């Protein structure tokens, strides 16, 4: 039989169909089918620091991986659920980082107050600054958000405020390595599962409606700008937390918090992990950040390899790892005659 008269057919696995709705709790096998991947993810991430006990350097990389995962989560939410492509991840980290530095160094607040305050305050500040841009759509919003971190960098440099080019030093560090590590790991899991829940709530559906068709949302008597405001607040909340964490991790807040890395790597992570899945953002950054660390040995040549990997993903698996894995997990394929 030649391939031409054959067609690939995808069918849901019987197990998947059986786990829909109330039947999910009918047997341990079904429960395991649903919980398995989630437990694997949670367990794997929580155990990761113990596995890496022998390699202290890589333990610190895990922190950075989580930071980028949070930023990617924030990007994925805004871009694939609300339709706002925000290239300003570093805007959030910068604002969060500088705010926590001000609270911690200038006002003398302890770390367990400065981070939450910087997260909330930063989210309010970012949302207020992005407010004039909210009526914009598509590429215009993207460009504006890309400009914001550049703008703030130049303002800090030119006016020599907030420590100027030296930044603010002397932030408190975390009490010990475990707190430092698990603070970000737990927050990442909380945000990941929280966001998954949020986008399927009624209010999350309204946000998804804004992405699908904002005119219909307006015709339904809902103020689209208010909804976008809420979405930007949620996204910048996550971003500012990452920024505040990074500032305390390095015990320093400087203009490198506004660096392009914080905007670009999360986007690349979402592309690799699979847009619109949320967990894909996490998987993407757990691949890209270590890859970038490994490639450090190659010096400046690493950018070439990095780009090659990215291009490869975009060309050959543009759907992203998570979408691919989900399909393999829930469906099987077979060849049938046309």
């Amino acid at each position, binding site marked *: 039989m030649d391939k031409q008269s054959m067609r690939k057919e995808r069918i849901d696995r019987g197990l998947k169909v059986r786990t829909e709705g109330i039947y999910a709790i009918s047997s341990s096998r079904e429960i395991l089918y649903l919980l398995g991947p989630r437990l694997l993810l949670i367990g794997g991430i929580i155990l990761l620091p113990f596995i890496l006990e022998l390699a202290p350097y890589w333990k610190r990389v895990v922190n950075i991986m989580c930071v980028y995962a949070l930023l990617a989560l924030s990007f994925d939410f805004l871009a694939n659920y609300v339709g706002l492509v925000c290239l300003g991840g570093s805007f959030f980290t910068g604002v969060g980082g500088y705010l926590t530095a001000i609270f911690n160094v200038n006002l003398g607040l302890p770390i367990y107050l400065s981070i939450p305050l910087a997260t909330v305050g930063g989210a309010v500040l970012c949302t207020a600054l992005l407010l004039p841009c909210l009526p914009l759509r598509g590429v215009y919003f993207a460009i504006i958000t890309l400009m914001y971190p550049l703008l703030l960098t130049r303002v800090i440099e030119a006016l020599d405020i907030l420590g100027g080019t030296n930044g603010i030093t002397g932030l408190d560090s975390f009490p010990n390595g475990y707190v430092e590590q698990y603070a970000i790991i737990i927050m990442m899991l909380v945000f990941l599962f929280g966001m998954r829940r949020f986008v399927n709530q009624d209010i999350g*559906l309204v946000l998804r*409606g804004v*992405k699908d068709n904002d*005119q219909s949302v*307006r*015709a339904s*008597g809902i103020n689209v700008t208010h909804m976008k405001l809420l979405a930007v607040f949620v996204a910048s909340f996550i971003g500012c937390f990452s920024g505040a964490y990074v500032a305390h991790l390095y015990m320093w807040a400087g203009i490198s918090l506004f660096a392009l890395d914080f905007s670009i790597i999360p986007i690349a992570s979402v592309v690799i992990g699979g847009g619109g899945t949320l967990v894909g953002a996490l998987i993407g950054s757990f691949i890209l950040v270590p890859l970038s660390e490994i490639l450090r040995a190659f010096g400046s040549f690493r950018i070439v390899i990095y780009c090659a990997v990215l291009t490869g993903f975009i060309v050959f698996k543009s759907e992203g790892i998570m979408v691919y894995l989900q399909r393999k997990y829930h469906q099987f394929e077979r060849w049938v005659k046309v």
Partner: protein
Amino acid sequence: MGEGMSAEPVLSIKGISKTFGGLKALSDVSFDIQQGDVFGIIGPNGSGKTTLINCITGFIKPGSGHVFFKGKEITAWQPHKIAHVGIARTFQIMRPYYSLPAYKNLIIPLWSPRARKTGGWRGGGKHGDRDTVAVDILEEIGFERDSRVPYKFASALPTGYLKRLELARCMALRPEIIFCDEVFSGLSMSEIAGMLPLIEKMKTEGITLIMVEHRLRELFRVAGRVMALNFGEKIVEGEPNFVIEDKRVREAYLGSEEV
């Protein structure tokens, strides 16, 4: 009710004009609509019917003129505010949320401040949830409850159901006025036959309907008054039979015989 003695119109349009560049899309269109009316707007392609709806519902700012809803001026309000006071609209080109299942499409209007204010989304009782109300509304509008249709993604629905979904989105707001922008266009005769009872039902529920239509036969079965537009100007308004007999309406549709 005699002339001049009629109650205050629920919607009053006074001298709406709109130009796009050099094109006069609407010039000085005025009309009144009484509570509970079914009002038809007809006219050839490009005569300004959809522009008129857009001007009234706030999607386009009119160049001049005024819109009064129950005596209150709502000219050039934001679309969501106009929807909030109870003026819903459908879109000629359907605008469902393709990435959501059909019944989840209704969560958005049910979540709106208007639906929350009127409590319409609570349905049966205090603990009713929006999903249940959404499926109820869909059933009312002709989605078979026990079939898989209400749970299908909007992207997988045929045109007939999408048109119904547009109406369902309006119904979820419990509006006082619905603007129907060509709900019959693109439908088969049997699909239209299925839609007509819905229109009748809305009429008996006391909802004021304003229907822009090309399917005149179906429109005249339900409409009490009809207005004809041509080149953005109102040419005649009155009973359906009176309007269709009008010479200028025939000319507009069939073309003028004298050059």
